[in-house]
């Protein structure tokens, strides 16, 4: 049994008057991939945005309940979100590289956190991050070119490299392949498989096949409630809940 990295207890999220998450109790295991599935608007993204406090950006968003990482209360008002986000990286649905060079895209994070004091240290971080995200071979000769000049799949791997660059413990992925073609998707999935050796990964996905391929644990959300969670194999072969069964067999969603 692996260690629990992140533990949420009775987590509720409200956007103004509208409640988006209802009493979510979900544990994420260390160095494992947890997939979150469910129809659009069911609260999967809202849940992972609680883990790095990205919901703070939204003025009307209110989070109650408990969410802990290694025993530290993430929801603590006094918690420094900057140091939290240094430990919890995020990759978004649409690749969003900065309109800067490939090198600057990756070196930005380490720079603001004071990692990589010298040029050679930074170079090393950039190289390692790009290698880990399987992009190094493709871009090593053109690190000065803008990140936006890469293809969609490369951009997404660049964003993964950017997330890795600050050496986080957890990586959140919000539908990272939804804007990519199947070949690029396959590359990202291979990459996720590799990354789980080092990082705890949470991935939101609309593709059941992807959840089966990459994850060890799957949570099914519906209308803001966590309906069922368990080993991926079990969820997809023999779910306890009728609703889960209906969703994975494509009867609704």
């Amino acid at each position: 049994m692996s260690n629990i990295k992140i533990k949420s207890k009775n987590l509720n999220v409200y956007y103004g008057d509208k409640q988006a998450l209802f009493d979510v109790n979900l544990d994420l295991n260390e160095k494992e991939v947890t997939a979150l599935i469910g129809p659009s608007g069911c609260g999967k993204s809202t849940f992972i945005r609680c883990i790095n406090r990205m919901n703070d950006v939204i003025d009307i968003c209110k989070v109650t309940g408990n969410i802990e990482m290694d025993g530290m209360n993430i929801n603590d008002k006094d918690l420094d979100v900057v140091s939290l986000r240094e430990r919890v990286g995020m990759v978004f649905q649409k690749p969003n590289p900065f309109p800067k060079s490939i090198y600057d895209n990756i070196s930005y994070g380490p720079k603001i956190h004071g990692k990589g004091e010298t040029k050679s240290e930074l170079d090393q971080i950039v190289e390692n991050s790009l290698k880990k995200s399987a992009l190094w071979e493709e871009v090593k000769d053109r690190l000065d070119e803008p990140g936006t000049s890469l293809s969609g799949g490369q951009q997404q791997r660049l964003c993964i490299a950017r997330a890795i660059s600050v050496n986080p413990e957890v990586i959140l992925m919000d539908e990272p392949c939804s804007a990519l073609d199947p070949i690029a998707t396959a590359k990202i999935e291979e990459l996720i498989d590799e990354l789980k050796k080092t990082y705890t990964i949470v991935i939101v996905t609309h593709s059941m096949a992807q959840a089966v391929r990459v994850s060890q644990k799957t949570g099914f959300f519906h209308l803001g409630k966590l309906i069922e969670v368990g080993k991926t194999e079990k969820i997809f072969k023999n779910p306890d809940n009728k609703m889960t069964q209906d969703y994975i067999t494509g009867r609704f969603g």
Partner: protein
Amino acid sequence: MTKEERLKKRHRAEKRFRFYGLTSIFVALLFVVILVQNIFSKGSSAFKKTVITTEVFFDQELLEIQNGASQEEIMEADFYDIMIENLIKAYPAKDRDEEDELLKLFSGDAEIEIKKAFLNDNNLIGKTITLDLTASDDIDQLHKGNYPRDLPEERRRISDFQLVIYDYFVENKKISKNFNNYFFNNGDSRDPELAGIGGALVGSFYSILICLLLAFPVAVLASIYLEEFAPKNKITDFIEININNLAAVPSIVYGLLALQILLATIQLPRSTPLVAGITLALMTLPRIIIPCRASLKAVPPSIREGALAVGASKFQSVFHHVVPLALPGTLSGTIIGLAQALGETAPLILIGMVAFVVDIPSSPVDPSSSLPVQVYLWSESAERGFVEKTSATIMMLLSFLIVMNFIAVYLRQKFEKRWN
């Protein structure tokens, strides 16, 4: 209606629409051409001035100074006699009356022009040099062909005898057209041939500089705060609405405000670029804030999220990513705001910039004119010389505006990042 009929009808409608579009573009272009042609035909002659080539002999007896005199001595010395003695030799006049008529062909600055020649070379005593002396406004206009010489004498400002002298000058090739340096270097003058936009240029420059220094930082910081940091509530909504309202306030209202507060209450010096700059800054502020906020808003949220997700603070995500990306739009908005301020006349009239100022301001607290106000002032003068100068000033103003707008467009095109 059959399918074919419907198709024909649609094609006709498309054709008609294209015709309307082309017509309106043509009409708009026609007006621009008429305007530009009108200004050019009236104004281009102002860049030349008529000069009369005159021999000047520096007679020791008529001067109190010696060869090698210092600058101050020359400045104080009287060159009036030298001027009279030499000018009356330009044409073989028979008596005092004829000499008086002859002198009127030269500008009021002939003495100063002779003095300047001596300032350049203080060893001229006992020597004769040839100088191009500026002609009077009437001769200038006559030589440029703007003056009707077929009118009966009593309806002309130039007498028959002066025409005779003029013809004599033309015949002897003593009269010619030179580049009009006075137009750029001189301040305003009652004499059209001596009047220039030097004072107005410097005044406008100081005003716009002060306007930029005050409006740009305030506008940029206000935009960044409102767009990125301020909570979205009733107060910020109220501020936003009022910024938009302020941008639509007629500029003369800002002039009234400045008159009451800057001049009457704080008692800043009247007619100065300082007051003009502050007034224009008030007026320009909302006009910069609006494009500045728009360009901040145009930076996609994904860039902000990307920065936040790697652990940048709010402040870092704004100043490392959002502001640099919004900069081209901000700068071009600022330049367009300044271009509007440069052409603004009404508030400047209220704060006393219509005063007749001959001296070129040496600092922002000296009384001064400005380019649009100079246009306004000269357009009210009856002399033909001022008509061409009005148009020439408009040409200068327009060329500044075109250059500024060009820079704004260039900045936007060249530096704006595109994302997709």
